[in-house]
């Protein structure tokens, strides 16, 4: 059983990451290969088509759809101002004149002589794609976007909400098992990425919004508090577009779970530095985990180290986190990898491993119930 593969989260002082910055539709790339870019710098832009307003002119004028062109004041492709006349009839008696005015400012996109409607479209909205991490452009896909490479400290969380943001890292908790209370959040944390310990209560979430904190990184949260924050019960873990006032990253999971010592130490070591974070989580095909990226100056690491580390499988001595009850959240290291299937209390026969905790105690755990702390 040499090929056991266990998904893990990366927590590492130094790595090279590449992030594709892609437009949702063809546009213009604003940078070139080799350019140094900042988190908040636009690297590509596109024009998102404006909203569409259908108007059934045939109905409103009381004519057949194929007669519509005769009544149009504005033709397809022409710009139109709000309240400008789009179409009108020409009755013999002026009082019976009907004028159809445009409900928006935009263009007449199309006219249908089958349905009798015109489609008006609002002006396009410019969409900028930003660099997200401080790094170097290593690839350009014309009209689509770029790939930015950064030498960085990388910490992956398990779950998050909210989009990409940036700010200075501020340690609010003194230890990984400390609960982040409202008192920990001060006015000077506005716009910062605040790191807590084991748990984030609802009152602290409210305070974070009030202070204007850009991002929160904590060990755990109660599901009911998340539900209250979002206003709905999250069914599947596909997030990143929520707008709750800040980006939230959980490093461990749901409940009160001390942040892994390694994660806490690494974040502490970079307090005061700029970090880029994203809460986007997608636990489906092509998984996306939330992340904290602390970019390093250019030239820190030689090129060509961008590839993800390839692990052969779990090894004795690997640091692991138990990710299922009854020992959920405990951290230790692999002390044995027995190859035979073993019966667990549910009566299932499964592959297991032994984990030794810092206090010397050893537990037998199904292999699938641990997560390697990578990096």
């Amino acid at each position: 059983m040499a090929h056991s593969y266990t998904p893990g989260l990366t927590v590492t002082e130094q790595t090279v990451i590449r992030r594709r910055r892609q437009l949702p539709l063809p546009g213009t790339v604003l940078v070139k290969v080799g350019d140094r870019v900042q988190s908040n710098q636009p690297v590509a832009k596109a024009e998102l088509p404006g909203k569409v307003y259908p108007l059934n002119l045939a109905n409103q004028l009381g004519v057949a759809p194929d007669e519509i062109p005769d009544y149009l004041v504005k033709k397809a492709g022409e710009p139109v101002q709000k309240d400008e006349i789009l179409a009108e009839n020409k009755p013999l008696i002026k009082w019976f004149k009907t004028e159809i005015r445009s409900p928006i400012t935009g263009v007449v996109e199309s006219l249908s002589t089958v349905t009798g409607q015109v489609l008006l479209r609002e002006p396009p909205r410019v969409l900028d794609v930003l660099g997200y991490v401080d790094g170097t452009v290593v690839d350009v896909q014309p009209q689509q976007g770029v790939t930015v490479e950064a030498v960085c400290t990388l910490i992956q969380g398990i779950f998050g909400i909210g989009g990409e943001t940036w700010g200075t890292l501020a340690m609010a908790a003194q230890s990984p098992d400390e609960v982040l209370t409202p008192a920990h959040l001060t006015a000077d944390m506005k716009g910062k990425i605040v790191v807590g310990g084991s748990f984030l209560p609802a009152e602290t979430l409210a305070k974070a919004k009030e202070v204007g904190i850009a991002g929160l990184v904590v060990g755990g949260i109660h599901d009911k508090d998340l539900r209250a924050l979002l206003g709905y019960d999250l069914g599947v873990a596909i997030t990143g577009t929520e707008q709750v006032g800040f980006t939230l990253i959980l490093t461990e999971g749901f409940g009160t779970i001390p942040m892994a010592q390694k994660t806490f130490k690494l974040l502490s070591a970079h307090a005061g530095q700029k970090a880029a974070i994203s809460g986007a989580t997608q636990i489906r095909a092509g998984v996306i985990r939330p992340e904290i990226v602390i970019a390093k100056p250019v030239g820190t690491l030689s090129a060509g180290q961008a590839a993800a580390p390839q692990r052969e499988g779990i090894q004795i001595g690997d640091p692991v986190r138990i990710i299922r009850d009854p020992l959920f959240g405990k951290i230790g290291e692999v002390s044995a990898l027995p190859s035979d299937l073993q019966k667990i209390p549910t009566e299932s026969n499964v592959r297991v491993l032994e984990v030794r905790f810092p206090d010397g105690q050893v537990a037998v755990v199904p292999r699938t119930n641990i997560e390697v702390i990578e990096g």
Partner: protein
Amino acid sequence: MSASAHASDKPKIDYPLNVIVATDCGSTTTKAILIEKVGDEYRQTYRGEAPTTVEAPFEDVTRGVLNAIAEIEELSGRKILDGDKIITPCRDQKTGVDIYISTSSAGGGLQMMVTGVVQNMTGESAQRAALGAGAIVIDVLASNDGRLPHEKIERIRSMRPDMILMSGGTDGGAVTHVVEMAEYVAAAEPRPRFGATYRLPLIYAGNKDAQGQVKKILGEKAALEITENIRPVLERENLAPARNKIHDLFLEHVMQQAPGYKKLMEMAGAPIMPTPAAVGVIMETIAKREHLNLIGVDIGGATTDVFSVFEGVFNRTVSANLGMSYSISNVLAEAGLANIMRWVPFEIDEQTLRNRIKNKMVRPTTIPQTLDELQIEQAISREALRLALIHHKSLATGLKGVQQERTISDVFEQGASGKTLIDMLKLDLIVGSGGILSHAPRRIQSMLMMVDAYEPLGFTRLSVDSIFMMPHLGVLSTINEKAATDVFVRDCMVYLGTCVAPIGQAKAGDRLADYELTFPDGRVVKDQLNMGELRLFPLGVNEQATLTMQPAKAINLGQGAGVPVTREVQGGAVGVMLDGRGRPLQLPADSPARVAALTKWFKAVELYPRL
């Protein structure tokens, strides 16, 4: 309607297939099985599994496949892999396999939007076509769906489906509404979920007279495919052409978006089949071979797929986001906490349960290690199964399949939808598949999960996929029917037994029926089944017993209230279960009483090791 794969998919192999390795790349786990010819018969010999590796750091579905096959290598002593390559055909007795085949649902499923003119007519027909092709229907847009035009356009823009199926209008009928819908789709400029470079596949299967207009409006904006009208006349559906087109486009565009999928296609010796399509093939085969009315279920990590064959009519629905790993939290959201809690045989506070469910959602590959964790997962699975069957019932309605006709007067009666074809009293067999059912530590657990969720009426046989290999056998049946049938009969299908459930209610402890059970060895058990009792009688596989039941006056066993029934009942890995809990099943509302009732039932059938 048929679940069968295209005949043209059948690969030409000019050597005997004696050793076959098959994988199913699920959303959570990749399962591999080895099938070997032993004498004249094919048998499933070894199995392996590994986490599906569409996730970082691999982002390559073939890594999970190789890991699962490597497990088979280690267990069997057969050398199958040469580095990252599968050795085909066999080189000698202990090296290589003759073919490698696979099914996959690792791409996250095919998410479709469908459009029609009248929501309950062409809209529903389009929905059935998409569901039958194994898709997840994320919205049905229709001219009369009550949404304003701009709301429809916004919906298309925001949902980002993998594919759109447009229907509407009978051939020769009015084109206006169909064209109007095409205009809305064009105005939305739909973009696919994956890949900025390819155009969204869009199938038009509506009024043939509108084809030219639709082409003009959408030809430049999407990868338009035109096929036969799914509702050529009001009284008839013609779903197969649209369904085949969806299947082709799915393979061509969508499945390939799963990381590493192209490599997987190169490795496989036959086209990769979507998992729901493969399981559908097997379910339909069982029903046809044994002339049964059947309900089948495959409860996975992300979706629960329900299949039914009633009076020869096959139906399939895919309940997106009702599953046991990625979608477990959605089961909580849809069923509600109280409905899940009602199956848990102990007290647990809401916060703890909610956190546990969310933790499973974010770490979907974990398994229950303790008994209470197992009980919670099996409670959730009952609700996932129940909700998916409700969904299936709502769509497995009249006017199914090609050439099934209805009259105009029926059409006027079609308020929301036709009458469901699922008649639980006519149901002969329930077949369960998927991790939670196939891997339940005790077979009785699989049986009771399905009984509690489906509440079968009267006499119903139950079976389970022994180790979750129905998808593999579905795809295998398209290339070697004998191998698929041999393995299915010998190794895959485990008959659990028969559930006998009187219909009706009585006061707790009151008599529901007198029964007399005559076993094959001549032993006779005579007793009374009372309201609230669950009784289990072991009766082996291939064994039959004779059950005579005299129900109480208001109680029905399928022949009418108070009418006695004598039936042969089949045994299985579990036996014969007399379910005296009443139909519909009602659990005590009061929490201590509910826990007591569950504990009593679970003890009666020895559901768990200790209670």
